[in-house]
């Protein structure tokens, strides 16, 4: 597990290990903090951090490791959320149905989008993924039965019989936490597998990978679908968390948020998306408690990071990455 926590190629202990371990301890103890201070909002905020970290993690799998810069990742979040919302509205409340449907729908959508988009390169790839996300956004607006532009309130969270009660906030929090950790573990295993090495090889030099006999298109497509499925799950969690879905979940600025979390945290790091999501959301929250104009500080801060910081927050902690 030490390799995972450190997520670097070297084996020397580094500040990164301490930061990542500390991060996990903080997240594990967050409900305790909320209970002690009697601040119910802390639970909501931290649950949101975990869910969006899962979404950003899935984006980072294709963007950070695969070099596929998708500017439409909020679409998968929306599709997962809408799967839960639509099924709930139609009277199918069981999470055993809702969640697999959410994941499958997002995966299927990713298969279609990926199959078409992966034929393009660079900026054109960024824009075509954005175009597909915009189409999905407008489809959601057109769904009059499910609230159209106004969105849809979900009156009951996914039911898992007597196994899990999602209305229990602490339980829901730990469920999100567990799923995030499972996601990080999955990405770690993937990235370090033969499959992951092919993906990373294609990021650095696709022509060479093809020349030595890898059908990079298929590898990238599979990776794209895995990321979509994972983000669909995050969408299902988010719908359960907010009890509400709306097209705004899929607005392009939401895709931008996910990208920013991944870039801010550090794209080459397994814990980067979590770091990024947590930093962005906590910073936003604490700034807005101090001032009404939080983005006057946050915006230039992002600009500063973009200009001066290499490898995001993870890059700051670990110093220069070897290799």
């Amino acid at each position, binding site marked *: 597990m030490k390799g995972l926590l450190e997520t670097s190629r070297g084996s020397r202990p580094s500040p990164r290990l301490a930061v990542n371990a500390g991060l996990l301890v903080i997240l594990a103890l967050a409900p305790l903090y909320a209970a002690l201070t009697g601040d119910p909002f802390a639970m909501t905020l931290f649950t949101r951090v975990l869910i969006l970290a899962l979404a950003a993690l899935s984006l980072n799998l294709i963007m950070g490791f695969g070099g596929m810069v998708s500017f439409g990742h909020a679409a998968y979040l929306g599709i997962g959320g809408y799967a839960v919302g639509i099924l709930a509205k139609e009277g199918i409340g069981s999470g055993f149905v809702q969640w697999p449907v959410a994941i499958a729908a997002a995966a299927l959508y990713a298969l279609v989008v990926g199959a078409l988009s992966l034929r393009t390169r660079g900026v054109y790839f960024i824009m075509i993924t954005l175009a597909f996300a915009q189409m999905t956004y407008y489809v959601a607006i057109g769904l009059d039965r499910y609230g159209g532009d106004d969105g849809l309130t979900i009156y009951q969270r996914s039911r898992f019989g007597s196994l899990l009660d999602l209305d229990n906030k602490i339980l829901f929090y730990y469920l999100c936490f567990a799923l995030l950790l499972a996601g990080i573990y999955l990405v770690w295993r993937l990235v370090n597998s033969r499959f992951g090495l092919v993906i990373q090889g294609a990021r650095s030099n696709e022509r060479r990978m093809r020349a030595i006999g890898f059908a990079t298109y298929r590898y990238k497509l599979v990776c794209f679908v895995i990321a979509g499925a994972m983000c669909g799950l995050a969408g299902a969690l988010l719908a359960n968390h907010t009890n509400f879905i709306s097209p705004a979940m899929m607005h392009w600025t939401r895709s931008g948020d996910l990208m920013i979390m991944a870039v801010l945290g550090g794209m080459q790091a397994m814990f980067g998306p979590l770091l990024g999501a947590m930093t962005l959301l906590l910073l936003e929250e604490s700034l807005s408690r101090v001032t009404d104009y939080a983005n*006057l500080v946050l915006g230039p801060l992002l600009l500063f990071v973009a200009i001066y910081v290499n490898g995001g927050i993870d890059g700051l902690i670990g110093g220069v990455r070897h290799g």
Partner: protein
Amino acid sequence: MQGASLSVGAPSPQPSPRWGEGVRTSKPDRGDVRHDDKSMLYFIEQFLNGIQLGMLLFLLAAGLTLIFGIMDLVNLAHGSLYMIGAYFAATFAEWTDSFVLGAIFAIVATLAVGMALEVIAMRRLYARSHLDHVLGTFGLLLFFNELVRLIWGPAGMTLSLPGEMLKAVEILPGLFYPVYRLVIIAVTLAVAFLLYALVMRTRLGMLIRAGASNREMVGALGVNIKLLYTMVFGLGAALAGFAGLMQAPILTVQIGMGENILILAFVVIIIGGIGSIRGAFVAALLVGLVDTVGRAFLPDLLHVYLSESAAASLGRALSSMMIYMVMALVLIVRPEGLFPAASK
């Protein structure tokens, strides 16, 4: 909508910017032809509306494609300059009590903001990756939205037109069309022509074209590339601000008004081919026409097969999606856009 804003600003009390479903959600001064009249006149009116939207998109896209093509910068804050242009125009028009004076001051002010922005922030971004551009300019977008809220307050503004522009003229027997929309078409065409002359006939234009096809070489030949970049960025900003102020009397001036139209402008430059002004012109007209005409006719077309309400909602969704479908199609057939910048 507040329950749905999912990350930045979710818990804060501030209202999230209104996201309309496209750029043309309110149309206070459309022509007089009735919607149910499927005559040729209605089509002509919609066609003109499409041209008008296309010309505005061109103003926005021309700057974006120059900045993208020459400095290789993905600028998500371009829509902010559009918004700032509209706010400046509304303010200056109020002070000077003249629409035209307000517009002129607003263009100059947006130009200044653009050049200052380039010197302070953007030039430090050029050497970074596209992802860093997204991060940095997204930060700027947040910053400008908040700054506008601080200066002008959260409520929108209106930019009112002089009386004679509010009228409609009979351009064809039975077809009344708002004067202001005709003015937009005429003025933007003139600007497009000037831009063409600037790029094709002047020394600055020559450098711009050279920069778009080979940046390193232009620098190596001793051109003051920093100054060129600042000027190009300022030009792009002024064009965006101009688009914003021209659109301002039709829509309300509000925070976040540049966000949806920015995406349309990106669609335009991708369809047109990055770095190509001619491509931006053709693609802007294409996008403007497809969007407007689709919105006007798809619901009725679908009504032939579907019930009225189903046709209306499906038509609305489909017509918003059409330009993205066009873009996906163009990219599949021509992966570098319609007019790839020459000699790349």
